[in-house]
């Protein structure tokens, strides 16, 4: 499993790492019970701060995505299998919405901006983007 982080992006690096691990689970690259790299290995491979890896793993544990076992590392939770099904269902809804937008003649950029705008208008204090993290 390789992760590609962009340290110069405005998105916090621990959030990028969390998103990529979740994405890897959604597409089946990581499965329930599988082990993630150790903090030391991941930080050296990606040349990133070990404390940032710790933070991403802790948040993922908090969300129930992974389990941290003392001394042996991080494992994908058994419970993520059900979430992966929900994600696939949601993916179908997004696909059909996109097809309808395209049939109205919208470009990809226009569709993306509409989604982002609606998300921004929807946002609640529980939205993690830009929220009080830590």
């Amino acid at each position, binding site marked *: 499993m390789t992760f590609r982080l962009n*340290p*110069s*992006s*405005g*998105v*916090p*690096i*621990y*959030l990028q790492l969390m998103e990529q691990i979740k994405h890897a689970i959604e597409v089946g690259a990581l499965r329930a019970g599988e082990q993630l790299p150790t*903090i*030391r290995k991941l*930080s*050296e491979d990606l*040349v*990133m*701060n*070990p*404390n*940032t890896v710790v*933070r991403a793993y802790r948040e993922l544990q908090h969300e129930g995505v992974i389990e941290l076992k003392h001394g042996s590392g991080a494992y994908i939770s058994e419970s993520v299998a059900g979430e992966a099904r929900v994600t696939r269902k949601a993916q179908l809804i997004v696909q059909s919405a996109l097809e309808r937008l395209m049939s109205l003649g919208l470009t990809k950029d226009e569709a993306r*901006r509409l989604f*982002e*705008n609606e998300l*921004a*208008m929807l*946002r*609640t*204090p529980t*939205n993690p*983007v*830009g*929220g*009080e*993290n*830590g």
Partner: protein
Amino acid sequence: MADPVITTQELKKAFNGHYALNGLNLNVPAGSIFGFLGRNGAGKTTTIKLLMGFLKPSEGSARVFGLSSADPSAGMEIRGRVGLVTEDKDLYPYMTVSQIIGFARGFFAKWRDDLEGRYLKVFDLPPNLKIAGLSKGMRSKLMLLLAILHGAELLILDEPTEGLDPVAVEDVLRELVALAAEEGITVFFSSHQLEEVEQIADHVCIIDRGTSIIGGSLDDLKGQHQRLRIIFDRELDGPIHWVEGVEHVRQAGRTVEILASRNIDAIVSQARSFAPASVEQFPVTLKEIFLDYLRRD
């Protein structure tokens, strides 16, 4: 979070009545990789000299490992436990790489013979070459090597990648990360290279004209800073008085752009209360934060 390794409080240093440092507050957590950012002449090198006890503060305090840097006997202890790599790279030009390692070994009780071979290889330093014949980048790497080998608990690095090519920069960054991950060493490094700070630092402080402008966890700074673009379908009657957390506003015609440093949900709610046509939210890079804070007034 463990006790801070470095703290300064309202640290000031004047040279001939001119304040090179004018109220610096730093807090470097143990085990962190801390990026100390600022333009040339912002006071970064003066801060490092004060931390090491090479200079006396005019006002305020600097503490390393809880010891006062201004106290001469504490200063001795600090210098024994810190690995310092400075810009001037003062070494003995007539010695070879292996001679200076042997020379330096004599001064430190906790010399790490176990790491010597590894770091000579990692930093690609030929043991028999004279220091006079080393490039600027090789001298930086040699100083970093000496700091690592003397068993430092804290590395203080003044622009450690200055003059290095991109491959050497990546080597140095990777080794700093490895030292933090494997040895639990705290790394405090000054730089004006935003990209390398973003890559490996978990905490940052930006200083300007001798004063800390902004600091803290890098991911928190990025998470809390957001840019909003609000577009209206009508002209606005005069400026809006924004709630707390708005750092910078640019209002042109029907578009308002905001840089927010916190309180983002309240700001978005306020924006929506004016019935805009759209509200867009963008993440903010460290570069944007740096430029925005340093270009004020």
